[in-house]
């Protein structure tokens, strides 16, 4: 076996051992093996490539004897190309027909539900005006969009009426919304094209969404570093290299908070990898000193809008050491090292399920269906997603993009969150003590004969005032303990509080 086999992964058998034995004495070999083991990749292939390169570089005129072979190889390649070309010419797919479109306009993928909805609307329109031929108008057009976005069906983008109104008056707003300081980029042009003269804007005036048509002279310039569009769930892998452009297509446009787009900021993009070059999904990138944050996607790419122009960004991921980068470049890749401390086993404690009927508190829920989620721009955390959706649930954006979720009770005058309240007996402490003395039934078991003292029990108070999770902290004997527990259980109710209560029962 030579070292190539060992590199490829043949680690068993006499020959592998021989190499390992040799490595014990040869530092060159052992270093090389370490290198191959520490970096992932198709090493054998790369080695062969390099050897070929070097042979080519250093070869002399002796290579003429292979000339015949080379010519034959070239002939094969040419014939292959020709047959390939004929293949393509005859091959009809929608992809090609999409390609044959006029180069200016491109199709964008939208979530299926959206497509169905729009189709329904279109059908409705057709019903009302059977003579017309309402073709869909292309409204958004991206220049220089790198290949990837080739959907199977062309889809056009509709702009909600509220947004359209906004656009008509005010060009400045669009600048604020979409432009970033970095202007030398591809421009995203939104152009409306009248495919069919029969349709005018008024046809759709009754609908909530309006097809916004604009003359071709007016343009929205949405400058962005790339050619990427995200519509709800539509993401393209290759495009997520740079800052995603979030086109605001939600019906409730007001939800899209303009405040979130800072006026002076940088957009930092990149990917987060571990030491082996594998992307880390769900790593958190945040800006120190502000609440700007981003999360890496399935390929490890992130895009962070920072609040200042010279930010300090932190990349964090569980199990890895955080990395702080001051003054990152616009395209910043980050490599995280694994934490030295090995993670011990993690114990998950479940508290079981409760039937809704048995819960006395109130429950408000939000479902993650399209209506509420897909129309909005992607958010960095679950907390952000439910902001404002549930009554009584407040989500606060703390630093480092970890949101604090608070449920009711935060807006009282006394806003101390973590006040420690000790429950008290409703009838009063004196009365409670009397109750304990009077109702004590002294057990007469053998175990507890002649025993004296105090049993201390500890418990929490649920929100109805009853003691729960009663445990014996200081015990004397079984029967006494049980008696103490019985007394507490049947005793008066308590005021609510988050601290535990200790009760002494004298015997």
């Amino acid at each position: 076996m030579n070292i190539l086999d060992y590199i490829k992964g043949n680690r068993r058998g006499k020959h592998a051992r021989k190499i390992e034995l040799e490595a014990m004495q040869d530092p060159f070999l052992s270093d090389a093996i370490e290198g191959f083991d520490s970096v992932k990749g198709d090493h054998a292939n790369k080695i062969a490539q390099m050897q070929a390169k070097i042979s080519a570089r250093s070869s002399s005129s002796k290579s003429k004897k292979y000339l015949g072979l080379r010519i034959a190889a070239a002939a094969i390649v040419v014939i292959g190309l020709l047959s390939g070309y004929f293949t393509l010419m005859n091959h009809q797919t929608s992809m090609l027909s999409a390609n044959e479109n006029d180069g200016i306009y491109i199709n964008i993928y939208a979530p299926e539900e959206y497509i169905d909805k729009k189709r329904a609307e279109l059908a409705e329109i057709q019903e009302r005006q059977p003579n017309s031929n309402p073709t869909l108008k292309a409204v958004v057009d991206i220049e220089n969009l790198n290949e990837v976005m080739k959907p199977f069906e062309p889809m056009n983008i509709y702009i909600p009426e509220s947004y359209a109104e906004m656009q008509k008056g005010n060009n400045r707003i669009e600048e604020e919304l979409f432009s970033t300081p970095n202007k030398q980029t591809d421009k995203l042009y939104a152009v409306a094209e009248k495919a069919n003269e029969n349709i005018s804007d008024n046809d759709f005036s009754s609908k909530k969404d309006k097809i916004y048509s604009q003359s071709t002279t007016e343009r929205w310039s949405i400058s962005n570093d790339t050619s990427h569009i995200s519509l709800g769930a539509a993401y393209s892998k290759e495009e997520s290299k740079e800052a995603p452009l979030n086109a605001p297509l939600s019906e409730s446009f007001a939800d899209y908070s303009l405040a979130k787009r800072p006026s002076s900021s940088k957009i930092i993009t990149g990917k987060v990898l571990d030491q082996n070059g594998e992307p880390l999904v769900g790593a958190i990138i945040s800006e120190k000193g502000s609440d700007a944050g981003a999360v890496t996607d399935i390929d490890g790419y992130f895009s962070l809008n920072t609040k200042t122009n010279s930010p300090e960004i932190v990349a964090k991921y569980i199990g890895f050491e955080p990395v702080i980068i001051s003054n990152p470049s616009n395209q910043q890749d980050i490599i995280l090292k694994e934490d030295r401390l090995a993670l011990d086993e993690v114990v998950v404690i479940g508290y079981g399920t409760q039937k809704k009927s048995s819960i006395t508190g109130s429950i408000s829920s939000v479902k993650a269906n399209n209506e509420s989620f897909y129309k909005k721009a992607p958010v960095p955390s679950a907390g952000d997603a439910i902001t404002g959706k549930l009554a009584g649930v407040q989500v606060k954006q703390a630093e480092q993009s970890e949101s604090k979720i608070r449920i009711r009770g935060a807006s009282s005058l006394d806003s101390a969150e973590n006040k420690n309240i000790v429950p008290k007996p409703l009838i009063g402490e004196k009365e409670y003590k009397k109750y304990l003395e009077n109702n004590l039934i002294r057990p007469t078991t053998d175990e507890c004969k002649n025993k004296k003292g105090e049993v201390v029990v500890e418990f929490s108070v649920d929100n109805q005032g009853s003691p729960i999770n009663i445990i014996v902290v200081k015990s004397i004997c079984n029967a006494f303990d049980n008696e103490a527990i019985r007394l507490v259980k049947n005793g008066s109710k308590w005021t609510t509080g988050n601290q535990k209560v200790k009760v002494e029962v004298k015997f």
Partner: protein
Amino acid sequence: MFFYYKFHKATNIFRIFVFRSCIHTKKGLNFFKKNTKIEETDEELLLKYKDSGDSEYFGKLYNRYIPLVYGVCLKYLQNEDKAQDAVMEIFENLLLKISGYNIKVFKTWLYSVVKNHCFHILKENKRELVVDFDSNLMESDDVLTLLSEEINDDRENILNKCIEKLPEPQRISVYKFFYEDLSYAEIVEITGYHLKSVKSYIQNGKRNLKNCIESSITEE
């Protein structure tokens, strides 16, 4: 469509024909090649290069070591692309400069060249350098020979006694590697130790054996 299909088929047949003929000629060439090939040593190739200046000799020599050079570069640079660049850079540099050196053993000389090159690259990028401290290697050479070869009786006795004294994981690992002739991967499989643990058990075991044997010898 039908015409196209026929055309395609025709090209396929043509391709197969040409391919076959290529194989035949290649085989023929190989046959001749085999008869005339001798295994040249590193130093011989180097000498030929120096004398003739024909880069083909050096290319051949370097190609032999590319796996090792690439591996070492990967270890220090931790990046496939950078490592590949380094391999090619080193080749270019050496092609020019090697004539000026008087090299006894090419392999060891090449090793230090590669290491220095990598360190140089790392230093350019960072002020700090993270290098693994290899307390590996080069320590217990005599132990290695003891374990690997047939030896006479009294040394064998001492060796056996010392092996018994080893802590269990070390003893097991050393025994399995040197006496049962298993490879690291196989030992990992059988014992359940991690790969790095096996390596360090063997390493420390060898060191302990060395100390034990030496002290036994001085006692006598």
